[in-house]
């Protein structure tokens, strides 16, 4: 059995990726999945030796054959494709632009059969090996819509890699926000780690994220990063967590050496283990393992 732990934040820039990389290095026995597919950064720290690089065909796009269409002559200029398209994706010259969501309505209504739906590559999926275990990551082409699908593909692949390698854990680094890439990273996850910071923006964002996580009925633990930036806000974050019955698993001060490690492209836990150990990383990881132990079938 494989337990998946998803690391998310709501607000961007709180330290998800930094923390997830440290969890991966410290936990061992895991596969790392970078599901922040808009802007994946873990490869910068993990420097994976690539073994797989696949195109990800996440969507369909309509394609209008100009030879058949003849600029609308084929439908006597009625152009039901243009009038029926809800996304204003077909230009007056019958070219389909990037607004196409691949619904297939134009394909269905074209009287001349001039339209086909073509698979479109919206990103890529990569697998590699790192010093600490296998890593799967996805990269979405800028502007594309199918981030949720690519996240699902990365997670599925991570599960396959974990099964093949006999690993017990998957650590998934998620996206900021609460939209489809986050939703896609939550279904089937066994535990959520929310990395936040003591600011009003992060607290507001976390409240919304907690709503989402609770709708999935997944247990969560909060990590308060850069806690000494604001004692007042740290207290408010702690109060919020208490009111929701969510444990604060770790509270970390802001430390330049963490940024220095990142700048040197090193995993902070590896470069500066005492910072993590002194702030309770050991018990945090032990509690995490305990939380998923039932699922793993270990005592």
């Amino acid at each position: 059995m494989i337990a998946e732990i998803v690391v998310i934040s709501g607000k961007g820039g709180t330290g998800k990726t930094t923390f997830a990389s440290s969890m991966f290095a410290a936990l061992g026995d895991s596969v790392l999945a970078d599901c922040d597919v808009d802007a994946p950064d873990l490869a910068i720290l993990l420097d994976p030796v690539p073994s797989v690089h696949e195109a990800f065909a996440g969507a369909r796009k309509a394609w209008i054959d100009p030879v058949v269409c003849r600029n609308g002559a084929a439908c006597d200029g009625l152009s039901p494709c243009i009038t029926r398209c809800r996304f204003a994706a077909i230009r007056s010259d019958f070219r389909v632009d990037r607004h196409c969501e691949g619904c297939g309505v134009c394909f269905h209504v074209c009287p001349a059969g001039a339209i086909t739906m073509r698979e479109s590559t919206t990103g890529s999926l990569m697998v590699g090996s790192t010093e600490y275990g296998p890593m799967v990551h996805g990269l979405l082409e800028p502007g594309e819509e199918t981030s949720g699908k690519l996240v699902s593909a990365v997670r599925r692949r991570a599960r396959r890699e974990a099964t093949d390698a006999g690993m017990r854990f998957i650590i998934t680094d998620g996206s900021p926000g609460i939209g489809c890439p986050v939703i896609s990273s939550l279904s089937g996850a066994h535990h959520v780690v929310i990395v936040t910071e003591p600011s009003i923006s992060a607290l507001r964002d976390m409240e919304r994220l907690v709503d989402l996580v609770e709708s999935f009925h997944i247990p969560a633990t909060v990590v308060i990063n850069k806690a000494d930036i604001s004692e007042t806000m740290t207290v408010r974050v702690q109060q919020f967590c208490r009111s929701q019955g969510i444990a604060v698993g770790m509270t970390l001060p802001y430390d330049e050496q963490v940024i220095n490690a990142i700048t040197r492209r090193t995993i902070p836990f590896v470069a500066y283990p005492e910072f993590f150990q002194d702030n309770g990383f050991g018990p945090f990881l032990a509690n995490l393992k305990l939380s998923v132990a039932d699922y793993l079938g270990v005592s």
Partner: protein
Amino acid sequence: MEICIVSGKGGTGKTTLATWLFAYHGGSALLDCDVEEPNAGLFLDVGWDSVESVNTGYPIIDEYFCANCGACASFCAFGAILSSPKATFVLPEMCHDCGGCGIVCPHGAITFGERKTGKIGQGVVNSPREHGGFFSYGELNVGEFSGVRIIKKLRESAPKDRLVFIDGPPGTSCSAVAALENVDYAVLVGEPTPFGISDMAMAVRMIRELGLPFGVVVNKAGIGNDDILDYCHKEGLTILGSIPFKRTVAESMAGGREGWLEMEEENLQIIAPIAEALALEAGLSQGVS
């Protein structure tokens, strides 16, 4: 004129810069298009004019006419309809509102209803500095997949008579594009760390694909190293300026409006050269500022 602020990486300081630019140009407009996690309003004192829901359509299947033939489910590209010979039902959040199921249904069993996917609020900002500035935000309901529809609606209702700043979402996917499309100028907020540069490169690709003029602001200058400047020079990017990392800025922004107000004068001084460089690059006319 519309100026959109994006970043690629989250947490680089988009909202910080957007609210400061909005304050610097008193009487302008600010649109919070980070509809999954809108925060700009936390720093402003807004007199609300309206809060309206944003709706989207979804199919309603009339069991009387439905023959469970499955044509709608086969057609749906988004997995919003599930059908078996015994039952057909809709997953409304998956629906992209394309209308296709209604077109293909051979039994006339499909009509369309409306459901709430989020909201848009707008108002006038009350404070001496931002006198009469226009503020609007969009907010996506928790559990919804995409805020693109809300962002588009928010942008449609932007005032046309003044300078408009758009606080964009993080990332480079469809939401960021919806915030950026057709603006006059984009500001890319980067941070001088390896993650910041890597994500910035993706944002540069996105902005270039949209064919928009843009400039870079380096925030939290001093942490990390100078690789970001090398990257900008290599790519021939315009650097509008940089904001030095100061713990006091992080501390004041952490507190919301109170902290923002306390540091207002100091922050506006920090931002003045950037605002002026932006005005020059974006071609802001004399009358607007």
